[in-house]
């Protein structure tokens, strides 16, 4: 008996608890953009209706348990076989409720499928286990972090280089699967500047958990400045510095076979590193971009991120080599 009451409270608390959680950056019930908000506005009343139905059902069960519990003097019950009117009633009532849910749902489906005007077009390519973003109209290629201006929607065209992934920035929009051989699309925008987190949500192999995503919304002027910076060529390291030694090592170790650095190498298996130092995170956004994390990563990429495609040929890098490479990467502004 008590369990049912507690249960009803427990279930209706789910929403409350989920909504009130502190520091849950991927919370779907805390929309930070118009698309996510439209979804949230659609589902909130449905949760409420579902909650009412749940309380009704649990309440009826509870009443039945209390009221019709066998007592020593209970007579044998009347053998009721059914009641057509009631049964028709509770066939029609849920059907009507569901109809009331279906109509706005379908309207929203079509609404969200519309392509916005004046959007920033970005091609998103899923790789095991990182994201590539190509701003073809702007001549920018970057990885892991989707940069977008505030107040202007982005229109994404998504496809995959290998297996199926699913692109998701939880506070901004729902998921869109990234299917090799198909060009799926989605669009969304952000209310305010800031970092919005998400991750790959279609199981894509060993390091599926390590394929995170981040969108960084910027004021339009900042976005334009960022684009200008990304369009510039790579800066060569100053002669005689550790950075220069690192650039030689970069060539010697064959890093350029997989990584593009504009004017230096043309590899395409791994992320384009031309402006690596301007990124806030790396390796599928599992690491913040700082020297300590880079050191961890370069020491043992397979240990840090099992199954990823970064294989450093030859013997493991020495600490000095790593220091030089980090110095080089830091010059790639």
């Amino acid at each position, binding site marked *: 008996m008590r369990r049912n009451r507690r249960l009803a409270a427990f279930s209706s608390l789910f929403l409350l608890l989920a909504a009130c959680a502190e*520091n849950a950056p991927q919370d779907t019930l805390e929309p930070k953009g118009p698309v996510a908000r439209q979804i949230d506005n659609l589902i909130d009343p449905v949760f409420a209706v579902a909650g009412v139905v749940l309380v009704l059902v649990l309440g009826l069960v509870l009443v039945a348990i209390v009221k019709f519990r066998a007592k020593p003097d209970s007579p044998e019950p009347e053998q009721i076989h059914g009641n057509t009117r009631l049964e028709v009633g509770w066939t029609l009532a849920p059907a009507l409720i569901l109809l009331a849910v279906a109509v706005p749902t379908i309207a929203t489906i079509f609404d969200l499928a519309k392509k916005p005007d004046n959007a920033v077009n970005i091609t998103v390519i899923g790789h095991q286990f990182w994201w590539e973003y190509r701003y073809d109209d702007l001549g920018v290629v970057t990885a892991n972090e989707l940069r977008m201006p505030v107040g202007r929607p982005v229109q994404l065209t998504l496809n995959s280089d290998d297996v199926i992934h699913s692109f998701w920035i939880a506070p901004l929009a729902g998921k869109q699967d990234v299917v090799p051989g198909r060009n799926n699309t989605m669009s969304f925008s952000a209310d305010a500047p800031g970092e919005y987190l998400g991750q790959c949500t279609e199981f894509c192999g060993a390091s599926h958990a*390590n394929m995170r995503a981040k969108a960084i919304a910027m004021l339009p002027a900042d976005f334009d400045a960022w684009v200008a910076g990304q369009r510039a060529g790579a800066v060569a390291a100053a002669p005689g510095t550790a950075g220069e030694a690192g650039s030689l090592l970069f060539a010697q170790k064959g890093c350029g076979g997989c990584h593009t650095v504009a004017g230096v190498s043309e590899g395409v298996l791994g992320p384009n590193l031309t402006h690596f130092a301007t990124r806030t995170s790396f390796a599928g956004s599992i690491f913040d971009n700082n020297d300590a994390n880079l050191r961890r990563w370069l020491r043992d990429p397979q240990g840090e991120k099992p199954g990823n495609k970064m294989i450093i040929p030859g013997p493991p890098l020495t600490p000095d080599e790593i220091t030089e490479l980090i110095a080089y990467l830091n010059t790639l502004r």
Partner: protein
Amino acid sequence: MAIVTPQRPEALAPEQPLNTPVRFLRRPTGYTKGLWGWMTTVDHKKIGIMYSATAFIFFLIGGLEALLLRLQLGGPDNTFLRADTYNQVFTMHGTTMIFLVIMPLSAGLANYLLPIMIGARDVAFPRINAFGYWVFLAGGLFMYSSFFLGGAPNGGWFGYVPLTRNLPGHNIDYWVFGLQILGIASLTGAINLIVTVINMRAPGMSLMRMPIFVWMSLVAQFLLLFAIPVITVALFLLSFDRLFSTNFFNVAAGSDPLLWQHLFWMFGHPEVYILILPAMGIVSEVLPVFSRKPLFGYQVMVFSGIAIGFMGWGVWAHHMFATGLGPVAVSAFSASTMFIAVPTGVKIFNWISTLWKGKLTFPTPMLFAIGFVTMFTIGGLSGVTHGVVPADTQQTDTYYIVAHFHYVLFGGSMFGLFSGAYYWYPKFAGRMLDERLGKIHFWLMFIGFNMTFGPFHILGLQGMPRRVYTYPEGRGWDVWNLVSTIGSFVIALSILVFIINMWKNRKPQEVGDDPWDARTLEWTIPSPPPEYNFKEIPLVTSRDELWHRKYTEDEDGRSVRREVTLGQPHMAGTEVEPTGPEGSESPDHVQAPGDHADGGEENGEHEEHIHMPSPSYWPLVTAIGLPIVSYGMIYKTWAVAIMGGVWIFGSLYAWALEPATAPEDTPVHGPDTSGEDLEAVPA
């Protein structure tokens, strides 16, 4: 499990074989006992017990895997399991619980009970029945052998291409061929049970008098019959891609990976109803018995089950709302997903109405049945929210989905199956399970279940994705994951209590035919039942046949115990005492005119022999060939594969030549024997 089945009287020794079909071992007979007796049995009850026992062992393995997963996810950045190990474990957890636990547990119960509930002595194809079990066991062992042969499947139970096409090693091959083997088991089982229910009902057991568990199992078997071929096709395509480099799922050659998803979910969604319908049937049997009222709205329950069966084929793409199907297709599947909730909702309200105005008692089966109704309601409601597609694009592939289907498959199917286990255990084992331990089991499981899976709703809405072996700090997921991990160990504890309960109550006692004062035919025969189930094939005059033999109704429609419980009515029909009040219009015992058409034919039989089919080792021998073929295929050792094929073909040939009843096997009793000799002789 120590369940003793009655054996034939020693006095009737077997005679010498008269002729010899293909054989390399002496054919077992009804007198064969011990391990060889179990291995060669064609008795649907023994096979049902073997299904259930095997599935229970797989349940423990799948549960252990779940505990490993929960240990890894108990805190952020945990390193208890490595990434690939985690992926193997979650793949096998899902595959095990679906294909090796819930399906065979339902198959086990159906095997044991369906023939008895419809008044038959065995299933239509007893040797195929045994074959189905051995193939199931072979498939399960085959798939689990992968753990020792290079690694278990690691592509998820849904096996999406192109990932599963590309993954190196043989992990995925074990999954593909294992599921193919299990599919054969399911298909043969489905055909057997369908034919049994359609053809072997006792006289008077019209379709609309069948117990609701029989109905729901029948619908589930039809779903299996049509769903298994779909996944078989998909798996064949995938295995050809992997073994022979065909291009069914090769994107570079122009294939569309969504083909796999359509095929998989066209199987996968009916599969969900295959898993839940039998449990719905169990609960629909248990609630009336402990409410002392008939099931409310029997017809509606039957038709809503059938409706679910049909509608279940029209919702598969709701697993694919994020794949980019386009707004028109998505809208159609959104609507169908919502409206399949209607027949489900009707069932829930009818269950509550069954309780309403009843005289409720709460032994363990009833607790689990009520647990089912409440937990399944939560799962059903969260299911409706998936139909709201824009919201589903936020929920899909998060723990919200994991919460949903655990409320359906654990809070639903498993609670239903546990209800059935406690309810029918006295019939299977001849002894009640302990009520005190049963209640401890229920409450621990109920609390542990909600502790484990309730927080998944929150985690999912907070954006925690499924199938991740690790998660970072600072996402707000730490606390609820820890709660869930603790809850999973409470569930494990409850299972331990259940095992202790069964262990303590393994030896049969005198429990009587009908310990629950129940309503259906299985309670008219001894516990455990004799090999032939019914001394005389029963004549069925009403739905809830046993209840109407025991009770009549007064003018207010209340049950009144008859002074003398009616015995077996005579076959001719004319002497059958009407059940219920004179000229009763009560819908569940209207006599259909054609019901007794077969009565005359059956009439003579019970006075003569009861011919039970003889045991046979050919089903087991044939089944062994399937993993042999599969190993040969996986390792491209064609000689082994061909050998396995020859093995299967040869065994089938020998099987085909083997008479159903061995000439040396004598009937259960001779023509002159009086009825008393039929009584079961417990060992």
